[in-house]
């Protein structure tokens, strides 16, 4: 008797299609990026990477990611906690609102922020009176990056916390544990892998975000240029090697992210076997 999906010809065909597709659309471009970056040798690559503006762009990108992650972490945990542990009017609406950044095109998000916080914007003009400028400076970049990345952590946590329920926390409270202890010793250990996963996704998006950032950054070389924006500029300037050198840096960060994600999943799977 054959099991479903056991027909050898069909199986071989499907495997071939999957592999061919992955190679053509995923692996080949990745290889091409690195190949392009090194076409004129390591020296030229290094010269491009260590270029003053590239270094500034790398610095700004990492700086933004570093600020974004803690904000998203706290926001995501608080939101997931609120949505899964309490019942209040508007809970469903809140759960839908979380998804807005996913649903809205990043460029639109950037434009909205520009409209609100730009010098002539509703809030921006008021802030301008106090000589505070958010747009075309790093605070603006940070704001839109937080906007596009804020759902990741919450989205990872909500289904998990829903499935786990609040019984363990209730048990901890009946045993006399104060609120913070319950969170630290019961809630946090149960969600730590999902939390880390959420952070990895947040980081990947924060580093790679182009659309929203390009609207609000002003793209001033050495000042408000993030790595993706810098890459775009180099490409427009016909500096192909430079563009691909920056691209390879971004690809490298992406690969690191993937490795981190895979090892987390591997560890989680191993824990499940052991537990």
């Amino acid at each position, binding site marked *: 008797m054959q099991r479903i999906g056991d027909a050898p010809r069909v199986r071989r065909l499907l495997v071939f299609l999957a592999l061919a597709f992955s190679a053509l659309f995923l692996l080949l471009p990745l290889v091409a990026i690195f190949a392009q970056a090194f076409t004129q040798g390591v020296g030229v690559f290094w010269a491009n990477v260590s270029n003053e503006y590239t270094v500034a762009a790398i610095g700004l990108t990492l700086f933004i990611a570093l600020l974004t992650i803690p904000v998203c972490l706290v926001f995501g945990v608080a939101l997931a906690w609120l949505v899964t542990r309490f019942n209040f009017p508007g809970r469903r609406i809140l759960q839908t609102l979380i998804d807005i950044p996913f649903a809205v095109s990043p460029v639109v998000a950037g434009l909205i922020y520009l409209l609100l916080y730009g010098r002539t914007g509703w809030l921006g003009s008021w802030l301008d009176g106090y000589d505070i400028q958010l747009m075309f400076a790093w605070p603006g970049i940070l704001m839109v990056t937080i906007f596009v990345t804020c759902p990741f952590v919450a989205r990872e946590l909500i289904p998990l916390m829903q499935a786990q329920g609040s019984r*363990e926390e*209730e048990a901890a*409270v*009946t*045993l006399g544990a104060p609120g913070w202890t319950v969170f630290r*010793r019961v809630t946090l250990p149960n969600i730590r892998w999902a939390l880390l996963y959420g952070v990895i996704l947040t980081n990947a998006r924060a580093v790679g975000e182009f659309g929203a950032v390009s609207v609000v950054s002003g793209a001033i070389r050495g000042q408000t240029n993030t790595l993706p924006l810098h890459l775009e500029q180099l490409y427009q300037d016909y500096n192909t090697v430079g563009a691909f050198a920056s691209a390879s840096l971004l690809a490298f960060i992406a690969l690191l992210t993937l490795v981190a994600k895979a090892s987390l999943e591997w560890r989680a799977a191993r824990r499940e076997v052991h*537990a």
Partner: protein
Amino acid sequence: MSIRLQNIAKHFGTSRALEPVNLDIRDGELIGLLGPSGSGKTTLLRIIAGLEAADREPAGRILFGDRDVTNLHVRDRRIGFVFQHYALFRHMTVFDNVAFGLTVMPRKSRPTSGEIRARVHRLLEMVKLEQLANRYPAQLSGGQQQRVSLARALALRPEVLLLDEPFGALDAKVRQELRRWLRHLHDELNFTSVFVTHDQEEALELSDRVVVMSNGRIEQIDTPDTLYRAPTNRFVFEFLGDVNHLEGSVRDGVLTCGDARLAVDLADGAEELLLRPHEVELREAATPNAHMPVTVTAISPVGAEVRVELEADWLGEPWLATVRHADYERLGLTRGMRLFAVPRRWHRFPDELSTTKPKELESA
């Protein structure tokens, strides 16, 4: 420690989970809250624990001994709570689970780590799980997990132990064993226990007194013995065991239902009588007082008795009778055999006939 509930009610949104309830539990009692799902028994237990807040209007009170705990937070009520699905901390070992309550005490009153270790080992010994101290909950069977959760709840030496369907998820044999063991523990450590169950056998076997609930109301509070023999209303009677119904009309002291006749000492009119399975006797011939022909449709020898299912034209729903093995052999019971049922005694709750079965009344 005694527990006193005064006028405790609970609404979830607009739906009422508990009508204002009064309940007095004596020091050292083992009380079973028994009822079908949705009867409010778990809500009542969680209100006693402080995991749920009672309605503010009407204002009720909860007293532990002389202490008014109505507005006291769960963590300050000093109760032990055992959850239906154990709720063990899945990332902690058995040892750490049991030690949790001790390790989260304020630094000033917390025992030293040596004392904690000694106490946890004593508790694990008590629940016969010393060998498994370093295991994780997922590596234990259901019965073992429930014992860990009991040890965890007892670690702080609570004077009140609350259990929410503690044996509901376990198989019959383990359940029996744990029940006996809980009874033993209760008598030895002398705390006051309240447990929730939907299993009438469990409630009757384990409790000093049983609180029968339905639709957010307390129907009856009594010892198992009184409860079974003298139920105050039809709900309690029906919930505590299998029930056979006999509906018919009485005329001149004889109840007639199809071709069945039974001499009764009742006034003329429509009647519904209720019988427990052990109150139905099976005979080869009718008696002067009872002529009730039945056919045996199923026989299952379960434990000490034989359960016999009976059908007849005059019966709406099949009857269930339990007979002793000796009678089973004497009568030579087989499927399809025609016999006569003779009620040894019967019950009736005439006042509630109209409220519980309005439809049958109209057609009768």
